[in-house]
């Protein structure tokens, strides 16, 4: 199993419970807005601590309430592309891309800087600040930053939501290439049926009762 996940999360008034186990490739996490998809990604990344359950990725236990195991986010080797991107505003695009790369052990790195920049088509953006990027440009930089950090798996939170037409097609092609070239397990949050149908190898549905 690429992802073996059982979570019981409490966020304020709400309780999110979700269990799934999926194989290699892309797992699409679908459901209406506000159902807690981003919270599930945060828990898999270690930014939220579930009340109970476990998070096992490719056989490595990242969290297990019963065994009192909780690997801190900085040690999970998780490439999380946030819905709000969270590029560092005080750093150039190049420095944003290098941020995770410089902190990842060499053995874990799956792709070089030059190749990532070419794959994402962001060669001309390297000297710019995030505030000057368009939505599509910033989205690609955020994906690049996560890829270069030597991730063992990727979590993509609505990577296509802010984009239209050709840009959306470009990012979908990038995600397909990442799957083909690096064999990284991925969780993709989306609520667009067409994207899910095209990209997903597995589909996990969340609804308000889950």
């Amino acid at each position, binding site marked *: 199993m690429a992802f073996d996940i059982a979570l019981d999360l409490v966020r304020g008034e709400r309780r999110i419970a979700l269990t799934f186990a999926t194989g290699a490739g892309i797992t699409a996490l679908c459901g209406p807005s506000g159902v807690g998809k981003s*919270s599930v990604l*945060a828990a898999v*990344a*270690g*930014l*939220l601590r579930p009340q109970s359950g476990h998070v096992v990725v490719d056989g490595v236990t990242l969290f297990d309430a019963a065994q009192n195991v909780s690997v*801190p*986010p*900085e*040690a*999970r*080797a*998780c*490439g*999380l592309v*946030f819905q*709000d991107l*969270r590029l*560092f*505003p*005080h750093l150039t695009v190049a420095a944003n891309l290098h*941020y*995770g790369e410089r*902190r*990842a052990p060499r053995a874990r790195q799956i792709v070089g800087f030059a190749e990532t920049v070419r794959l994402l088509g962001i060669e001309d953006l390297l000297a710019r600040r995030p505030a000057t990027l368009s939505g599509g440009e910033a989205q690609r930089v955020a994906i690049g*930053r*996560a890829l270069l*950090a030597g991730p063992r798996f990727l979590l993509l939170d609505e990577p296509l939501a802010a984009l239209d037409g050709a840009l959306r097609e470009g990012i979908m092609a990038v995600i397909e290439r990442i799957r083909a070239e690096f064999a990284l397990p991925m969780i993709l949050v989306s609520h667009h049926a067409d994207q899910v149908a095209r990209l997903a190898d597995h589909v996990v549905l969340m609804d308000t009762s889950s």
Partner: protein
Amino acid sequence: MLTAPEWAIVGLSLKVGAVAMFAALPVAFALAYVLARGRFAGMILLDAVVHLPLVLPPVVIGWLLLIAFAPAGPVGAILQRWLGITLLFRWTGAALAAAVMALPLMVRAIRLSLEAIDPRLEAAARTLGAGPIDRFVTVTLPLARPGVLAALVLGFARSLGEFGATITFVSNVPGETATLPLAIYAALQEPGQESTVWRLALVSVLLSLGALVVSEWLMRRTSKPGSAHGV
């Protein structure tokens, strides 16, 4: 133009102000960090204590410093015994008084910039492999930089104007503790010193105005929208 003794007064004021602001900076940053990020029961009390020098009569602060740093005082005795130094009647004492008086303003400026930092950026740094100190140095500190710069300028400006606590704590010793305001006060006590008063007052106005303009400019650059909190 200024006379040589008047230049010495300006020089002393700049030295006291510079030492005061750099000495107060680490303390101000630590307090600002705790007040911006901490969640504990005594927060309101700590906040009030930090702001005390802003509202207490400066003479009270000076008197408290005098009690603490007198040769027989709790801090003064230790300094005298272990380091063989005293702050009484010394420019270092003037710098300490200025630092204490400037502290609330510096804490405020740094705290504002820390509170404007989106904690989600620190969470992003975590997922990219940055530990606590790493995140602090590469994300928090650079984003707080405008506030730190503003705090330095504000602290410097406040130090230049310090009077009550200084004269109470270290007296008005020409060439040692007689900074601009104290020298102006001394000149006012003597007949025939009007031109000195005018010149020193003008220097004070120019220095303070410059510092305020710079700090306002820095604060404007730091106050950006979008400081929502989340994971």
